[in-house]
């Protein structure tokens, strides 16, 4: 079968997700939904007073791309500051729109998440790939509005 985007990285994160579970004491929780597909995740983060994401997880149901992408995202952002996470999110979103616009360094920053760059050629799956990232952005944005 000629699969250009169901890579081993993707199927591995989908079948054996590392972060697909409830975390202890999350202090930020937000549901992200992709109504056209039915992808549905609840993203949970614990962010400490210094603004560092100390723990993260997600639960939900959806296609392999939405689930694996959220899992890879958490691999990347746990242990980093909110600002760093948003910086990575910005790179990821740009990659999904146009992977050629990314520098090699930026691509490297995304680690395994860069394996989703071919989604740019699958317009119907873009929303799946960005669901986790989008939910995290909304989460931080909502927090800013509260402050």
């Amino acid at each position, binding site marked *: 079968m*000629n*699969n250009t985007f*169901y890579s081993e990285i993707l199927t591995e994160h989908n079948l054996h997700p590392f972060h697909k579970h409830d975390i202890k004491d999350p202090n930020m929780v937000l549901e992200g939904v992709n109504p*056209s597909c*039915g992808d*549905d995740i609840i993203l949970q983060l614990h962010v400490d007073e210094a603004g560092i994401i100390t723990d993260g997880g997600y639960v939900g149901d959806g*296609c*392999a791309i939405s689930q694996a992408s959220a899992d890879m995202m958490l691999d990347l952002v746990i242990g980093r500051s909110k600002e760093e996470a948003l910086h990575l999110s910005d790179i990821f979103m740009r990659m999904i729109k146009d992977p050629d616009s990314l520098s090699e360094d930026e691509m490297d920053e995304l680690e395994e998440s860069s394996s989703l760059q071919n989604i740019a050629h699958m317009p119907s799956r873009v929303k*799946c790939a960005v669901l986790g990232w989008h939910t995290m952005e909304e989460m931080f944005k909502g927090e800013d509005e509260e402050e």
Partner: protein
Amino acid sequence: MSMHHDIRKIREDFPFFTANPHLVYLDSSATSQRYKGAVEAASDFYLYHNASPLRGLYDMSIQATESFEAARQKTADFIHAGHACEIIFTRNASESFNLLASSLCSLVLKEGDEIIVGITEHHSNMLPWRDAAARFGATVTYWECDSEGYYSPESLQALLKPNTRIVTVTQMSNVFGLENDIKTFARLAHENGSLFVADGAQSVPHMPVDVQDLDVDFLCFSGHKMLAPFGIGVLYGKKKLLDKMPPYMSGGEMIDIVTRDRVKYSQLPHKFEAGTVNAGGAIALGAAIDYYNSLGFDYIQSRESELTAYMCEQILNLPHFSVMGSQDPREHHGIVTFKIEGVHPHDISAILSQENICIRAGHHCAHPLHQHMGVMSSTRASLMFYNTKEEIDRLISALSGIRRAMGYEE
């Protein structure tokens, strides 16, 4: 009418297949492919005979009116309606249901009344009734099918109450492909003094429908699921009911007299067809109906049931696959909806798309049904007489490799 038609000739009547020789199209329940003669009929009208129907007094306009009304007569004959004026042209089945729910409910629905809606219903035959019920202080009660999609007459009987005004259910589920016994359900509704509305969007394209024999009060369907273009749909209603119902939209062509403060609405069917009509669409639908008649439902049904049973049996035999609805392949009319353990429908659809196979993934505009069945979404393959065994073989071959592509051992 001959039972024997050459499938290669039939496929030539659909230029889509010639233009896309490598594509396997198995999403006809969403929209069918277009019969060349239907599109040509619309094109011919617009390019060579175009004039505003039902308006002008010159020959070309009168001809346009005649072509438009001939399409109405063909549609009436196709579903065995008693009068052509019982056929109201709309944009699609959704618009038919919206018109019906709005107009009929303002005639018959009072506070405290009830509408019974099948849980299998497409959102288009569910949300308009919910909206109307909310507007008039009435309630919607869901009629539940069993785990294989069957509705029993007893379960309807148990729900019917003196304040049940309307009962509605589809003649053919767009998820299960199961035919419902709407003749019996209409009789039970009528014995209770209730009206009966049927969704014919999936049945009219695949089986002979006789509204008088079924004795349904209303039937809605779409042209684009039966070989005609988008933008033409039908509401059938019994004349005695349509006559009493108020207009849905007002404007041009639906009036007899308008003064500064008074209006007398037109007779049927124009009362419900405000504005300049979709004559090209109606004419195309008429041409599609001519084509159905030339093939004959004996042929169409025998071919579709053979292909469907072939597809369903093979899907049932694939390990880790399950079929929604009846486990009897003969009960699936052109539609097989299935799940693969551990693989999300959108991934199935994306992988099949890479193999040039078009199927539908999601909830098929039937969220409450999927909730009732306890699943988030599903994958649907749907066919028509123009499909072939070879196309189904390609589907099955692609499906059998999907679990492995997604990282499973087998």
